[in-house]
């Protein structure tokens, strides 16, 4: 059987991390191709439901990344988001969601190498954890839209 390839969903802000990931590419830095990048205006735009939906629809890990504190294009979107993450992490941990699969980071537009390192390390962590079937098994097979789980 082929080695398990984790699917990682990354929610990144357009101003810093998306540009940083772009820099990774233009710098010809190779990194794991397991990540699907979803661009949002700001980390403050990330509803926590995005993370739950990602897991429900087949992600084995999630990365949330944006501008460093004080670098936010909208001044404080990332700082508001940080407060929500503190609360969210505690709540998800309390209900038994595997928080080792949710990774938060600040990656600026100049940190192409940091983005590559981040993705590589998340991919290797999640690869060790295996597929997040436990989460998706909470949906009975006949109720999964479009057939079987991804």
């Amino acid at each position, binding site marked *: 059987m082929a080695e398990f390839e984790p699917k990682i969903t990354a929610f990144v802000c357009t101003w810093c991390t998306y540009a940083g990931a772009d820099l990774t590419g233009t710098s010809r830095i190779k990194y794991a191709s397991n990540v699907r990048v979803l661009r949002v205006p700001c980390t403050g735009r990330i509803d926590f439901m995005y993370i*739950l939906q990602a897991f429900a629809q087949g992600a084995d890990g999630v990365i949330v990344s944006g501008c460093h504190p004080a670098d936010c294009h909208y001044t404080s979107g990332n700082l508001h988001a940080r407060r929500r993450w*503190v609360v969210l992490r505690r709540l998800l941990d309390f209900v038994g969601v595997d928080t080792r699969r949710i990774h938060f980071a600040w990656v600026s537009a100049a940190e192409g190498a940091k983005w590559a390192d981040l993705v590589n390390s998340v991919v290797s962590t999640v690869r060790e954890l295996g597929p997040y079937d436990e989460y998706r098994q909470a949906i009975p097979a006949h109720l999964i839209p479009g057939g079987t789980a991804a």
Partner: protein
Amino acid sequence: MSALHDTARQLLESGTAAVVIGYGEGTAGSARPLFVRDAARAGELVFDERCVHNLSVYLLKPEVKALGKAAIVGQPATLRSILQLASEQQVKEGDVIVLLPETEGGVRQIGSFAEIEEAVSEADAQLSPEEKACLDEIAALPRVDRWRFWQQEFTRCLKCYACRAACPLCYCAQCIVEVNQPQWIPVPPHPLGNMDWHLVRAMHLAGRCIGCGECARACPVDIPLNLLNQVIEEEISGQFGAHAGLSASASYALSTFTTGDKDTFIR
């Protein structure tokens, strides 16, 4: 009891209040909400250990607002709900009179937010030792067991939304669960969708929940929903030093920030 009847009668006779929201005799020995609009019926009000429900949920209902100024029979949770609603601009100064039955048999009448703020204390906002012990017990379980525990709880959820209906702070005209473009909360009744619903509710009440426990009390299948709110309350008070429902002018813990907020989990 007679002090409560007299006060209610006076308020209604003088026209100071158009309706007294209190407790009356229900069926099978229970207490139920009672809306007294006629002074002659003030004697139907009861107040005893059965009267635990947080009646402030009715203050925002259009049909109750339409009756005019309300007096509400309350307890500490009612006071804190009103302060939280006031801080969210849902209740105006002078909209409501609170009648606090006292243990000696008297009734304390509170009309202004300043008086309500005086009547509540930070001690009311703390988790009780029993609540704290319950949280710690669940938190001490291995992660997989916590997951199984909550999945078993959520499996029973009927999505009746009694938790939402009973909550004084769940007043959105359109709730996210009724939004279907996109469909945030899955319609089919499975544990994951049920969990989505309860997590959404907990997150939307984060920093706002005053911990009256009405959601768990209203739940027909006895899911301990208040624990989800309590764990958030513990985190918010521990990390940000904020408590809901202690002030009519406080800002909401998650709509503000400090540069020193916890960030050890962020790379």
